[in-house]
């Protein structure tokens, strides 16, 4: 699995757009980029996943440049309830129960009123 680097913490205010960038210089050709969100004392929650270009769902957008050495998770108009730890994970698509999640140090996002 490729090593990832992301900010330790970020602060924002309600209503703002938040962009969290993750660096993964050693990403392999068949690696996917996946983001999870975790609230205190709760299990991580899958947010979004992409391979290249841009992916958007009802929660967030994921921007991936052509070289795929980084990616940016974009949260539009955050609210207090978006305060959580956000993890960026990179890994190849395996099968048969080998897609374990390797969590590195995530980004602690604090949203203020």
């Amino acid at each position: 699995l490729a090593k990832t680097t992301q900010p330790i913490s970020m602060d924002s205010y309600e209503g703002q757009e938040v962009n969290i960038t993750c660096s993964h210089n050693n990403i392999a050709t068949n690696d996917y980029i996946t983001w999870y969100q975790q609230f205190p004392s709760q299990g991580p929650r899958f947010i979004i996943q992409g391979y290249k270009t841009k992916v958007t769902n009802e929660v967030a957008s994921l921007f991936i440049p052509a070289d795929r050495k980084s990616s940016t998770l974009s949260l539009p108009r955050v609210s207090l309830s978006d305060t959580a730890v956000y993890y960026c994970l990179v890994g190849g698509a395996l099968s048969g129960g080998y897609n374990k999640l390797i969590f590195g140090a995530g980004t602690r996002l604090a949203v203020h009123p």
Partner: protein
Amino acid sequence: AAGVIQSPRHLIKEKRETATLKCYPIPRHDTVYWYQQGPGQDPQFLISFYEKMQSDKGSIPDRFSAQQFSDYHSELNMSSLELGDSALYFCASSLEGEVKAGPYEQYFGPGTRLTVT
């Protein structure tokens, strides 16, 4: 929609005792993963099962064992408990048997908080 169920939600044990944690995956999901999250730490992968067979193993102590049963529920058995085993234990399930399911898209349960005294 049905989610991953874990039981018990809280468990208090003494050192050297045994604990059994249970996980009921989302119906039709074929893969179960177990993770441990210590206080202030990131989740760590322990073990996984695909179609009732152990598939992958992480930093799981020899004192721990796990299995997946015919109904796809899984149990994590922990013996000779130590103070350092105090943590949140999460089970996650996924559907890896279908192409349309994205890799690394796992659904986590609420966790079992184990406290060893």
